[in-house]
């Protein structure tokens, strides 16, 4: 299945403004995902849900489709009370979307060296 783009173009948002705002998104997404993982390790599903929801909304505001879809998938698995295995798998997919979008953002949009994580 074909992957959606990392970002969809947002009307009336110029490139310079997008580049200025993007670090706020990347920083928040990392922080939210870290909190999501802490929630997962502590079996705190409320926290996992809150963080996935926050990531979905923030990513959607920037047109970061892969991340918003990945976060929505985590929320859906939680809503359907799916198995722990399915939850782990959805979180893993969200992590991949987050990492690849981050690398694309830094390398292609902000022309920075991508540090190892």
């Amino acid at each position, binding site marked *: 299945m074909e992957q959606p783009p990392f970002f969809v173009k*947002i*009307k*009336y*948002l110029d490139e310079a*403004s997008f580049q200025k*705002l993007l670090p*706020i*998104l990347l920083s*928040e*997404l990392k922080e939210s995902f870290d909190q999501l993982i802490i929630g997962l390790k502590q079996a705190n599903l409320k926290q996992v849900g*809150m963080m996935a*929801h*926050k990531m*979905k*909304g*923030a990513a*959607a*505001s*920037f*047109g970061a489709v892969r991340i918003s879809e990945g976060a929505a998938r985590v929320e859906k698995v939680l809503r359907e009370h799916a198995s722990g295995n399915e939850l782990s798998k959805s979180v893993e997919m969200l992590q991949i979307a987050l990492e690849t979008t981050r690398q694309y953002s830094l390398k292609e949009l902000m022309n920075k060296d991508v540090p190892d994580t």
Partner: protein
Amino acid sequence: MKQLKHVLLVDDSDATNAMNSYFLRRVHADADIHVAKNGRDALKYLQTPNENTGKLPNPDLILLDLKMPVLDGFGFLEQHQELFPIVPKEQVIVVLSTSMNEEDKKEVARYKPVQGFLHKPLTVRKVEEIVTNYF
């Protein structure tokens, strides 16, 4: 089109607030935009008189997220109703949420100052629609 002078954004996401501020300023360049990261901080802001004028803040528009920590959008609306039983005529609350749940829409519609329910993300077009439809 009416120019908004004062907007209160209530959302726990800094990134969303930054983007929403950008879009609001594209259409309402001179708007004073205040950000609260949850319902409790928003209520606190609305109850704190301005240092210079001594008057309570009276935003034209409150853009309200529903799912937030500490005090969510529903909690905000409930307490807002108790604190401000007479809402200024020109004050409009629009819910801006990722929720597609019809029950959420019905629930927020119970509150008089809520004029609209929009789905995230905010866009320039939605900002224009808010002003055209609700002011």
